[in-house]
């Protein structure tokens, strides 16, 4: 043990801690995991240095010399061999229990945990809050628009996870935990996020956001902080990545999201206000575009992606892999286009636009009619010559709404923190 300490003095413990862990664990369990991990690091480092020191000493000491042979030396030594069998074993037993107990803590959620439903599909995440609503906040990682899930701090939260298609894995590096997500089965995980440090707070006004964006742009960067949200103005927050850790296909590496921890009262205020009832079809469509993962594969600015872009989808001739083709006239007809769009959303495999793969997850059973119509309205609003908007209060396609611009992100954007 004092050996450990001497090594610890030679290199600063802190330096290695920073080198291995990009930040302190964001939950108590994560911190205990970090302890175990750092202990293991020093344990391994000790044995490694010890063995290598021996090895190199021997090699240096017993180089071959011409005309000399190795002196006789014991070819085995039972006590020694027993010693180096038993002593490591004892260490291992201890390590096992250390890992096992904190694993069980990670697995067994406290009885008072708040249950939320997390869905995974190719290639995005969706979180349903206890009141049935879903998040309306989004940000950018890399070039992708990803959802931001607000989470109350210092509250036990239990996620019930399920997948819509293939296996995914819910991984929050800052929580040091990970759980695979299966179709047709539930898995669960839980956490109690630490309160945000207060280093970052929500903007208090739209002006503040604008200036932040301007300054970020001036630095060639890109503002990825929160938009102005009335219920959260001035509230501190802490962002954590959500990654998919189980290979799930084409956009696997884009299947990310942000877990944003805010004080519990602020969360309660916020979660009350995110119903979608008040939104016009196009606004709602824009929201669903981001929330339902459409943004993973379809851009709204005509740029390349896994699926056909939505810009000018309404009013552009389509050629399909099955040989069919729709003329620009047909595609400009509202009724005709609506039916085509509805079919392509619910059962995408029926008509594949030439040049694209049969990649999309069918959305049958995931969208109600209002949502479906909203999405179609939004797509049409991006068309060649969009139909006149009947609903009042909806924004044009190229509005300053943060969600609209997000999919044209610069390749290398700074990450959310």
């Amino acid at each position, binding site marked *: 043990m004092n050996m450990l300490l001497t090594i610890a003095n030679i290199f600063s413990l802190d330096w290695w801690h920073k080198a291995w862990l990009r930040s302190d664990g964001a939950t108590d369990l994560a911190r205990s995991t970090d302890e175990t991990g750092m202990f293991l690091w020093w344990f391994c480092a000790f044995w490694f240095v010890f063995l290598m020191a021996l090895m190199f000493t021997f090699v240096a000491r017993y180089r071959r010399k011409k005309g000399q042979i190795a002196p006789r030396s014991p070819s*085995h030594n039972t006590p020694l061999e027993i010693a180096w069998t038993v002593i490591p074993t004892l260490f291992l037993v201890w390590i096992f229990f250390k890992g096992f107990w904190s694993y*069980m803590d990670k697995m067994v*959620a406290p009885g008072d945990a708040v249950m939320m439903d997390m869905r995974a599909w190719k290639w995005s995440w969706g979180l349903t809050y206890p009141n049935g609503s879903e998040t309306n906040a989004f940000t950018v990682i890399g070039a992708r628009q990803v959802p931001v899930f607000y989470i109350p701090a210092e509250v036990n939260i239990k996620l019930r996870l399920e997948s819509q298609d293939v296996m995914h894995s819910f991984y929050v590096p800052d929580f040091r935990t990970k759980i695979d997500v299966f179709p*047709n089965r539930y*898995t*669960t995980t839980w956490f109690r996020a630490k309160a945000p440090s207060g280093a970052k707070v929500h903007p208090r006004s739209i002006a503040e956001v604008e200036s932040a964006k301007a300054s970020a742009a001036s630095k060639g960067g890109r503002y990825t902080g929160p938009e102005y949200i009335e219920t959260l103005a001035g509230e501190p927050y802490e962002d954590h990545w959500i990654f998919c850790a189980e290979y799930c296909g084409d956009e696997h590496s884009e299947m990310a999201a942000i877990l944003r921890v805010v004080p519990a009262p602020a969360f309660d205020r916020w979660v009350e206000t995110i119903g979608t009832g008040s939104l016009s079809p196009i606004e709602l469509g824009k929201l669903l575009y981001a929330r339902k993962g459409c943004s993973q594969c379809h851009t709204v600015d005509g740029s390349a992606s896994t699926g056909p872009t939505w810009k000018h989808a309404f009013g552009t001739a389509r050629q399909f892999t099955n040989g069919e083709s729709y003329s620009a006239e047909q595609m400009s007809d509202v009724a005709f286009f609506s039916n085509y769009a509805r079919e392509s959303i619910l059962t995408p495999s029926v008509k594949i636009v030439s040049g694209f793969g049969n990649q999309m997850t069918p959305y*049958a059973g995931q969208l109600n009619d209002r949502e479906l119509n909203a999405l179609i309205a939004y797509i049409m609003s991006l068309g060649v010559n969009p139909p006149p908007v009947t609903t009042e209060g909806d924004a044009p396609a190229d509005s300053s709404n943060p969600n609209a611009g997000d999919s044209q992100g610069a390749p290398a954007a700074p990450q959310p923190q």
Partner: protein
Amino acid sequence: MAHSPANSAAFNELDPHGFEGHGQHAAHVIIGPFTLRLVLAALLFFTVLTVGLAQLEVGIQNYFHIVLPWWVNVVVAMSIATVKALLVMAYFMQLRYDNPINTILMLFTMGALALFLFFTGLDLLSRDVIEPQKAGAIVAGGTGKQVVGTGDKPLVVAARERFMQKLLDKHNGNVAAAEAEFEMIKADVSPHHHGHGHDGGHALPDANRTFPRFGTSGALSADDPHHAPASTGH
């Protein structure tokens, strides 16, 4: 490493390292037809026995209404099968007279197989020990995103609807007639089970009455995944 020198004078060319032991000669055993026929008779007897016992269990349950624990059936059938397997291996495959190494090898194989079954079962059958929700049965077509042609319905539901559709076409859309024929065919299926002497002919319950959980997407709306609403598929 203490080393025992090989004395080349006493060295046996056929058995260079004394490993085979008696294996050399044992390998050439000849098992006479009498033994073989005896073994065959035993095997046939055990076959009859195992079938008879299985039928007996069914009979007891159906006619005396004594419900035997589920494992009786399994243990009886499997132990008889094991006895038969041992007979085949020992005599037909000559393990009894053969070089013991082959027997040891088979034991190792069985060991590996046992480990395989045990640990796989240990995981898959203990999912709900900590978290009951993890025990959710996997329903075919539950999320329905992958199965061709079933939409989001379980396979059996889809199959039944396909079948009803066939009947409807046959009666060119006359629902009542189709329903009637559906019932008729169903009635004719259960005697088929009689004929095969399986169960005491308990009629198949109405196929439409109950389904397992309608996949997770259906159950999400339910508070408790175990008592999710019955299928809304029809």
